[in-house]
């Protein structure tokens, strides 16, 4: 048997369902408070977001760009630490410098490419039997004589080994903390800007070979 809208029983049920439900006045406020309690705090949501596994799509070019950026950061970090890589040397006691010095450039010793950053050990030598101290200042140590003090060896020979990457560097010896002395055995820098002679050392790193170039 099927009832219809005219059926008094159905009509009574419908009327009951249509009757407004009486609500307490603070009903809306209590619902909203419950909703707010259900939302986690910002740190909890952030932590959840971080822990949730995700699929990240990166193109090969994008990956290369990221790798290059990271390499750049590493290079900058290395460069900013470069001065500290030069070891401090103990000074010795003597008096006046002589005019003789010897310097062994590392050109040709290192087969790696220029710019690759492979350092060659370059020995700087000054014969200065009268000097009380001799230091080295140049492009490789921020021109800070306190960073590379040379050690005295036999017969007033002052030496120091400095690791240098391929390139061309200007330098001077600083005798007794105040006198700038160019290396008599090394080429001079052309056109000194500050009125004192400056020497240059070139550290090679390539294997230059003519490939049929013409004049």
């Amino acid at each position: 048997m099927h009832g219809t809208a005219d059926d008094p029983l159905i009509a009574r049920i419908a009327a009951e369902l249509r009757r407004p439900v009486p609500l307490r006045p603070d009903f809306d406020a209590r619902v909203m408070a419950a909703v707010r309690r259900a939302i986690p705090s910002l740190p909890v949501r952030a932590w959840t977001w971080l822990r949730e596994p995700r699929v990240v799509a990166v193109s090969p070019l994008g990956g290369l760009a990221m790798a290059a950026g990271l390499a750049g950061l590493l290079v900058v970090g290395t460069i900013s630490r470069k001065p500290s890589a030069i070891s401090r040397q103990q000074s010795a006691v003597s008096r006046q410098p002589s005019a003789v010095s010897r310097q062994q450039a590392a050109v040709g010793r290192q087969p790696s490419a220029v710019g690759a950053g492979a350092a060659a050990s370059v020995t700087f030598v000054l014969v200065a039997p009268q000097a009380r101290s001799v230091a080295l200042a140049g492009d490789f140590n921020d021109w800070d004589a306190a960073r590379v003090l040379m050690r005295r060896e036999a017969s007033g020979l002052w030496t120091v080994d400095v690791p240098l990457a391929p390139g061309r560097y200007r330098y001077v010896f600083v005798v007794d903390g105040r006198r700038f002395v160019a290396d008599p055995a090394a080429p001079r820098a052309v056109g000194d800007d500050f009125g004192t002679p400056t020497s240059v050392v070139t550290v090679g790193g390539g294997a230059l070979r003519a490939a049929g170039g013409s004049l």
Partner: protein
Amino acid sequence: MNARILMLAGALGGLVAPAAARAQSERLAGRLDDRTRAAVTALVDSARAAGLPADPLVNKALEGASKGADGARIAAAVRALAGDLTRTRAVLGRTATEAELVAGAAALRAGATPAFLERLRADYPREPLVVPLAVMADLVARGVPADTAVRSVLALVRTGMREAELVAFRQSVERDVALGAPAGAAAAVRVNAAERDFANTATGQQPPSAPPRPRKP
């Protein structure tokens, strides 16, 4: 996608560049007075924005500070070097390394023409040019006329000299000059000898000065 990559690269560059600038600023701190440091920093920032290496400029300023030069002289020297680096890069191109730019700037300062740099780069697009450029400048410093030094280096590189041999050539010229030979003549004589050796090697002949090879029994 390209825009995304560019943004990514830009963001990474944005991270690196301030770090480099900060490191260089720290190197100048305490070495220059405020006014000079501001002038040098402006020059360095400008050079960096143009894609030039900043370290050589900072080194130049520190050299001036170490030698007790006044601020105006330091700023002028940094400005002059920035100009030399700009001219060098214009010739050697954006792929030139910092070491090549420094050596090229020294060569220009010594009297080399941009055409010399251009010729070297054109002949050896993938070889490091630091040593040939440096040898040219060093020869001039020893008194060899600039045009002779340029011709010498181009000729020697053409003979296939390696870096160490180029430096040995420079040392030979220095010895000759120390013994009283005119610098230009010493370079020319040494270049002629190297070219003669090269020609003899190429044709299978022995150089006249070489001892005869022992014959096989």
